[in-house]
C-alpha cells in the first residue's frame, strides 16, 4: 500500500514536469504561428462605395473556402469590362500557393467594416502579410486584400498556468504529507486533484487529444474540491452538494462532443461527434452554473461551521469558505459569459476567479493536514509533558486540545467519574456546549474529559489525547498504588525491627531478672554448701562444690555476653555516647570517637539503637577483618540527617555481601528510613550511614 502511494506520487511529479515542459514548448511556437487571424481589407479610395466591397467579400469567401465558386458565378459578378483580367484562377492559385506553403489558412468572419474601406478579419497561421488583389481589364489594381497576422490572446496566460501548477503542486504536497501520516482516505483524492489541476495546462498543446484532455480533466476538480473543502471544515460531505458538483463535472466532460473546435485559433476537439455550437454553449453554461451552486453551498456550509469550530481551526474554515465563494463567483460569471455569443470565452476575471478558487482548495487541504500535524504535535507535546510530570494533567490536556474549559475528571473506583471536589460527573449533568469523553484502560474506567462539545467534530484527535491522558491517569493510579504498598512494606519492616528490638529488650530483661539472678543465687548456695563442707572437713565435697560454683560463674559470664549483645543496658541508661564509649573500650584497636549531635542529643530510642548497632557491627568488623591500627567513629547531625561514619586504616576488602552483618544492618537502617554505604579500598574501609534525626 505504501509503495503504491509512492508510485502515485512519483507519477504526479513526472506528470508535472512533463506538463511544464509541454507548456514551455507550445507557448514558444505560438509566438510565431497559428493564432494570427486579423485580416484588414482595404479598397482604393477612388472606387468607393461600389459593388467592389461586395465583390471583395465574395472573393474572401472563395478564398476562405467557405463559398463554393463557379466560373458562371464569377462571370456574372465580375462583368466583362469591370473585372476583365481579374483572375479568380490567379487568386485561387495565389491562395492555394499560400495554403500549400502555410498549411491551413482560412477566414472565419468579418468583424468590422466601415464606409470607404473594407476591413475584414480572417485567419492566417503565418505571420507574414499577404496581399491579394483584383485586376481590372486595364490591368490596373483596383483593390487589394491585405492579410495581416496579429497575435491572438494565448490559450492560457502565464498566471493561469501558474495557478494550475500551484494547485497541482499543492494537492501533491497534501498527498505527500497524508501519505507520511498514513491516511489513505485522503491521499488518493489529493493525487487525483493534483492530476486534474495539472491537466489544465494541456490546453497549450496543439494535439487534439491532449488539448481536449486539458479542457475536460480539470472538471474533476469540482467534485474533488467539494469533498476536500467540506472535509476540511469538519462538515459531513452533503450528498446533494457532491451530486451537483459531479453533475457539473459530467456536463463539462461531455461538452466537447458537440463542437469541432472550442475557440478561434484553438486546435480541433478530440472525439467530437457533431458541431453544434448552441448545444456546446448550453452544456458549458450548465456546468458552470452547477459548479457555482456547489461551490456556493460549500462556502455557506463552511461559513456556518466557522462559528462552531475550535479557535485554532477557524482560519482554515474561513479559508475554505473564501475558496468556495471565489470559485462560485467565477463559475456563475463564466456561465453568464458563455450565454453571450460575443463573449471572450477565455481569460477574463471569471476564469481568473475560478482558477484562484481552485488553487485555494489544496491550500485549505494542506492547512487542514498541517493542522492535524499540529494536533499530533500537540499530542506529542502532551505525552512529553506527562512524562516529565512537570505539567498538571488538566492544563496539559487543555493545551493539547486547545480548549481552556477542559477539565479532567477521575474515577477512583472504576465505576463513576468524580471531579476534584468529589462531585459526580455524568453526561446529563453537563452545561450546554460541554461534552464528556470517558477514558478507559482496557475496560476499566480510569477517568474522563469534560470538554467543549465542538471537539466532537475531531474524534481522532480527541481519542488520541484521551488515550494519552488515560495513560497518565493509569500511571498515576498505579504509582499511588505502588507507593501505598511501598509505604505499607516500609511500615511493616519498621514494625518488624521495632518488634525485634522490643523482644531483645524483653529477653535481656528476662535474662537479667531470671536466669542470671537464679544462677547467682545458685552460686551463693553452692558457696554456702562448700563452706559448710569445708567446716566439716569434707574437702572432696568442698572441692566438688567449688567446681560447680565455677561452672555457675561461667554460665553467668556466658549469659552476660549474650544479654549484652541483645541490648546494651548502657545505651538505654546513659545514651549513645557512653554506649559507644563502652564499645571503644572493648575494641582491641584504638578508636577515636567524635560525636557531636548539636541540639539533637535527645535521640529517638529506635534511631539511637540503630546507630549503636551500626557502630557496633562496623567496629566488630574492623576488629575481625581489617587488620587496622586505628578506627574512627564520627557522628554528626546536619540538615535533619544524622551522619554516622566508621572508618579504619586497614586492608579494606569489606563488602556488604548477602548474609553478612552489614546486610542485616542495611535492612535495619532502611527500616529507620536511612541509608548505609560501605566503601573499601586498600587504604581502609568506611561505613557510612545516614538516618533522620529530630
Amino acid at each position, binding site marked *: 500500500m505504501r509503495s503504491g502511494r509512492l508510485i502515485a506520487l512519483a507519477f504526479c511529479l513526472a506528470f508535472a514536469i512533463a506538463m511544464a515542459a509541454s507548456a514551455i514548448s507550445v507557448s514558444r511556437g505560438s509566438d510565431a504561428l497559428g493564432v494570427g487571424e486579423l485580416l484588414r481589407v482595404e479598397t482604393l479610395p477612388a472606387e468607393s462605395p461600389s459593388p467592389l466591397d461586395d465583390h471583395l467579400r465574395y472573393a474572401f469567401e472563395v478564398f476562405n473556402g467557405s463559398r463554393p465558386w463557379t466560373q458562371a458565378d464569377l462571370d456574372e459578378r465580375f462583368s466583362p469590362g469591370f473585372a476583365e483580367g481579374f483572375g479568380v484562377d490567379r487568386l485561387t492559385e495565389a491562395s492555394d500557393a499560400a495554403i500549400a506553403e502555410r498549411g491551413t489558412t482560412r477566414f472565419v468572419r468579418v468583424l468590422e467594416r466601415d464606409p470607404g474601406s473594407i476591413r475584414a478579419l480572417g485567419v492566417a497561421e503565418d505571420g507574414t502579410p499577404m496581399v491579394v488583389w483584383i485586376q481590372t481589364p486595364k490591368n490596373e489594381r483596383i483593390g487589394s486584400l491585405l492579410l495581416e497576422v496579429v497575435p491572438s490572446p494565448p490559450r492560457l496566460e502565464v498566471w493561469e498556468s501558474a495557478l494550475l501548477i500551484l494547485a497541482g503542486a499543492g494537492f501533491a504536497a497534501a498527498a505527500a504529507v497524508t501519505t507520511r501520516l498514513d491516511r489513505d482516505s485522503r491521499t488518493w483524492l489529493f493525487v487525483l486533484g493534483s492530476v486534474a489541476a495539472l491537466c489544465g495546462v494541456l490546453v497549450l498543446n496543439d494535439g487534439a487529444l491532449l488539448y481536449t484532455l486539458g479542457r475536460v480533466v480539470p472538471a474533476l476538480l469540482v467534485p474533488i474540491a467539494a469533498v476536500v473543502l467540506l472535509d476540511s471544515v469538519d462538515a459531513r460531505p452533503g450528498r446533494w452538494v457532491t451530486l451537483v458538483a459531479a453533475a457539473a463535472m459530467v456536463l463539462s466532460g461531455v461538452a466537447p462532443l458537440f463542437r469541432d473546435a472550442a475557440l478561434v485559433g484553438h486546435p480541433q476537439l478530440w472525439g467530437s461527434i457533431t458541431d453544434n455550437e448552441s448545444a456546446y454553449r448550453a452544456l458549458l453554461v450548465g456546468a458552470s452554473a452547477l459548479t457555482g451552486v456547489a461551490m456556493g453551498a460549500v462556502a455557506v456550509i463552511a461559513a456556518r461551521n466557522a462559528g462552531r469550530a475550535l479557535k485554532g481551526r477557524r482560519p482554515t474554515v474561513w479559508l475554505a469558505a473564501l475558496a468556495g465563494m471565489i470559485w462560485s463567483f467565477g463559475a456563475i460569471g463564466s456561465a453568464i459569459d458563455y450565454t453571450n455569443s460575443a463573449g471572450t470565452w477565455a481569460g477574463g476575471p471569471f476564469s481568473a476567479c475560478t482558477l484562484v478558487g481552485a488553487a485555494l482548495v489544496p491550500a485549505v487541504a494542506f492547512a487542514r493536514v498541517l493542522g492535524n500535524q499540529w494536533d499530533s504535535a500537540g499530542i506529542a507535546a502532551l505525552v512529553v509533558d506527562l512524562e516529565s510530570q512537570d505539567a498538571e494533567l488538566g492544563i496539559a490536556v487543555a493545551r493539547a486540545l486547545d480548549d481552556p474549559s477542559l477539565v479532567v475528571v477521575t474515577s477512583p473506583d472504576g465505576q463513576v467519574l468524580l471531579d476534584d471536589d468529589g462531585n459526580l460527573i455524568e453526561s446529563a449533568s453537563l452545561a450546554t456546549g460541554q461534552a464528556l469523553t470517558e477514558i478507559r484502560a482496557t475496560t476499566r474506567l480510569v477517568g474522563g474529559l469534560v470538554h467543549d462539545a465542538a471537539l466532537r467534530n475531531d474524534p481522532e484527535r480527541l481519542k488520541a489525547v484521551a488515550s494519552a491522558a488515560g495513560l497518565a491517569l493509569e500511571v498515576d493510579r498505579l504509582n499511588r498504588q505502588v507507593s501505598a504498598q511501598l509505604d505499607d512494606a516500609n511500615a511493616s519492616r519498621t514494625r518488624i525491627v521495632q518488634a525485634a528490638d522490643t523482644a531483645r529488650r524483653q529477653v535481656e530483661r528476662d535474662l*537479667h531478672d531470671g536466669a542470671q539472678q537464679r544462677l547467682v543465687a545458685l552460686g551463693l548456695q553452692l558457696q554456702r554448701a562448700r563452706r559448710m563442707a569445708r567446716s566439716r572437713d569434707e574437702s572432696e565435697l568442698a572441692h566438688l562444690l567449688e567446681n560447680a560454683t565455677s561452672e555457675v560463674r561461667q554460665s553467668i559470664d556466658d549469659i552476660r555476653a549474650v544479654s549484652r549483645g541483645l541490648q546494651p*543496658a548502657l545505651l538505654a541508661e546513659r545514651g549513645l555516647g557512653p554506649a559507644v564509649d563502652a564499645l571503644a573500650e572493648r575494641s*582491641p584497636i584504638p578508636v577515636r570517637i*567524635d560525636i557531636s549531635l548539636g541540639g539533637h542529643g535527645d535521640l529517638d530510642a529506635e534511631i539511637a539503637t540503630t546507630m549503636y548497632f551500626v557502630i557496633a557491627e562496623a567496629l566488630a568488623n574492623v576488629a575481625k577483618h581489617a587488620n587496622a591500627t586505628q578506627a574512627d567513629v564520627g557522628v554528626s547531625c546536619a540538615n535533619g540527617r544524622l551522619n554516622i561514619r566508621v572508618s579504619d586504616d586497614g586492608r579494606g576488602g569489606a563488602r556488604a555481601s548477602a548474609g553478612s552483618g552489614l546486610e542485616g544492618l542495611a535492612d535495619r537502617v532502611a527500616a529507620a528510613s536511612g541509608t548505609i554505604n560501605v566503601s573499601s579500598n586498600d587504604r581502609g574501609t568506611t561505613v557510612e550511614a545516614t538516618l533522620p534525626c529530630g
Partner: protein
Amino acid sequence: MRVILVDDSALIREGLALLLAEEGIEVVAIFPDATGVLDAVKRDQPDVLVVDVRMPPTFETEGLELALQCRRANPETSVLVLSQHIETRYAVELLQEGAAGVGYLLKDRVTQIDDFLAALQRVADGGSAIDPLVVARLLQRPTTNKALDRLTAREIEVLSLMAEGHTNAAIAAQLSINPRTAETHVSHILSKLDLPPDEATDRRVSAVILWLRQSERDVRNLTEG
C-alpha cells in the same frame, strides 16, 4: 559488721542475707527497692549499704543513684554496689564522691565468697573495692596500653591491685613479695604516671582509676548532646 541489703531479687536477697549471717555479719534490714532505704540507713547507721544497680521502678541505675545519695547523706556508711554488668563508666560515676568507703563489684563475686567478704570488709573499713574486671578493662584499652608502656609487667600487676583498692600490704601479700618492694613499686608507678605520692589508699584508687580513664580522654573528643 552491720549491713543493709537492697536487691529486687528475693533469691539473691535471702541467699546473701543467710550467707552474711553465717559469716557473723549482721543484716539489719533488707529492701527490695530504694524506697525507705535512706531513712533506714540514717536510723540504723549500718557499716555498709550493699545495693544492686538495677532495681525497680525503671530497672536502670537506681542502685547507683541510691549509693551516691547515701554517701552524701551518711558519710559514715560505706556503699558496695553490685552489678550484673560491669561498666567502667559506672565505677567512675561512683568514685566522683571519693573512693573512701566505696565498692563496685560484679554481682557474681558473691559466689567467690572469700574475695567478696574481703572486699566487703575493706569497704566497711573505709577502703575501696573496685572489681578486677573494671580495672582489667581499663588496662586493656588500646590507648591506655600505650600510656602504660613505661611500666614494667610487675608494675602493671601492682597498678591493677592498687586500682582494685588493695593496700600496700595486701598487694605484697597477693604477689608474695616484700612489703618494702611493694611500696617501691607503688612509688615508682605513681611517679611514672605523674600522680602525687599519696599514702591514702582510697585517694590512690580514685587517682589511678581516673588516670586510666583520662588517658583515653586525651585522645578523644567526646561531646554528648
